[in-house]
C-alpha cells in the first residue's frame, strides 16, 4: 500500500471516530473460548437493561455468532456512557469436531457445531478489523495467558489503536492468578472480576466508563 493511501486511511479512521462520537460505541467482548465472555456480556446487560445477551455453557464455542445488545447505558459517578455490547465467539486458530464428541454430542451435531464455530471466529475477526470502537478482552485467570491467540489478538487490537480493557475473570476459582495476566500484558491495566459471581463489577463499570465514555 502506498504511503499516501496509508496516511489517508489513518486520517479516515480518526475522523470516523470523531464524527461518530454521539453514537453508542460498539464494544467487542473478545478472548479465547471459555474465558467467560458471554457470562460477562449477560452480567452487563442484566445489570443495566434487565435482559440477557445469550446462553452460557462450559462447552467451548457455545457462542458461534457475534451477538449485540444495543444501547446499554451505564451510569457512573454522575456520568452516563451508552455502549452497544458485542459478545463474540472465542477466537482460536483450530477447531476439531472430535473435541465436541467428548461432550456427549452425536457426530453430526459435533460437525455442525464445529462448522458454526469456524464461521463465528471468522466473523469475530471481521468485526475486530471493521466494526468495533473498543475492546473488552476477557481472560480466564486460572489458565496460562501466554498463548499465541492472546498475543496475536492483543497485537491486532493495539495495531488498530482501539482502547482495550483487560479483564482477569474467574477470580472465584482456586487456581486464579491475576498477577500472571498483569505480567503477560504489562502495557495494559488488568482488572480482576468474577462475572459469574458478580465480584468487583463496580470497578469494571468504572473502567468501562473511563475507557469508552
Amino acid at each position: 500500500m502506498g504511503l499516501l493511501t496509508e496516511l489517508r486511511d489513518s486520517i479516515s479512521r480518526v475522523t470516523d471516530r470523531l464524527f461518530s462520537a454521539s453514537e453508542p460505541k460498539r464494544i467487542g467482548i473478545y478472548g479465547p473460548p471459555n474465558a467467560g465472555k458471554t457470562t460477562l456480556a449477560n452480567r452487563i446487560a442484566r445489570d443495566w437493561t434487565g435482559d440477557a445477551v445469550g446462553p452460557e455453557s462450559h462447552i467451548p464455542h457455545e457462542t458461534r455468532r457475534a451477538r449485540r445488545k444495543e444501547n446499554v447505558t451505564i451510569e457512573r459517578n454522575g456520568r452516563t456512557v451508552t455502549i452497544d455490547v458485542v459478545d463474540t465467539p472465542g477466537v482460536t486458530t483450530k477447531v476439531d469436531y472430535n473435541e465436541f464428541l467428548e461432550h456427549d454430542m452425536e457426530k453430526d451435531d459435533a460437525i455442525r457445531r464445529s462448522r458454526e464455530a469456524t464461521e463465528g471466529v471468522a466473523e469475530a475477526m471481521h468485526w475486530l478489523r471493521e466494526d468495533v470502537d473498543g475492546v473488552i478482552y476477557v481472560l480466564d485467570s486460572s489458565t496460562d495467558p501466554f498463548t499465541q491467540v492472546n498475543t496475536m489478538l492483543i497485537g491486532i487490537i493495539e495495531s488498530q489503536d482501539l482502547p482495550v480493557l483487560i479483564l482477569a475473570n474467574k477470580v472465584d476459582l482456586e487456581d486464579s492468578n491475576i498477577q500472571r495476566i498483569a505480567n503477560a500484558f504489562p502495557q495494559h491495566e488488568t482488572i480482576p472480576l468474577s462475572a459469574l459471581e458478580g465480584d468487583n463489577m463496580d470497578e469494571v463499570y468504572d473502567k468501562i466508563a473511563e475507557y469508552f465514555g
Partner: protein
Amino acid sequence: MPEATPNTDGVQIDLISGARMDGLRSMEKIRLILDTVRDGNIVILEEGLSPDEESKLIEVTMNEISPDEFNGIEIETYPRSQTGDKSFLGRLMGKEETKKLTVIGPANQIETLHKDENLISALVSRR
C-alpha cells in the same frame, strides 16, 4: 515452493525469508502459508506477519477448516516486544515492528511444548 521429491517418512520444513515475503501482497502471503501447511508441511517465517495479516490468516483459516481433512493451524511467535516501534508516526502509518520469527504448521501435527520471549520449543509429528 521449489520442486522437490516429497519424503513421506519425514516432515518438510520451509524456511521463508523476509525478502521473499516482502514481494508478496497480504493475501498472497496467507495463500502461500496455508497451501504449504495444508500439504502437511511446517512453515517458518523469518520476519512474521503484520497484525492485520495475522487477523486475516485466522479468518481465512477458519473458512478452510473441514472435518476429517483440515483442523486449522498451530502458530507460534515470540511475544511481541514492548519496546517495539511505538512512535506516533509509526503507529499513525501502521508501521508496527513485526519482525518476529514465526512457526506455522497443521494443528494436528505440531504441538507447542514451551514458549517464552527467547525460545519456542515444538513437537512435530508425521501425518
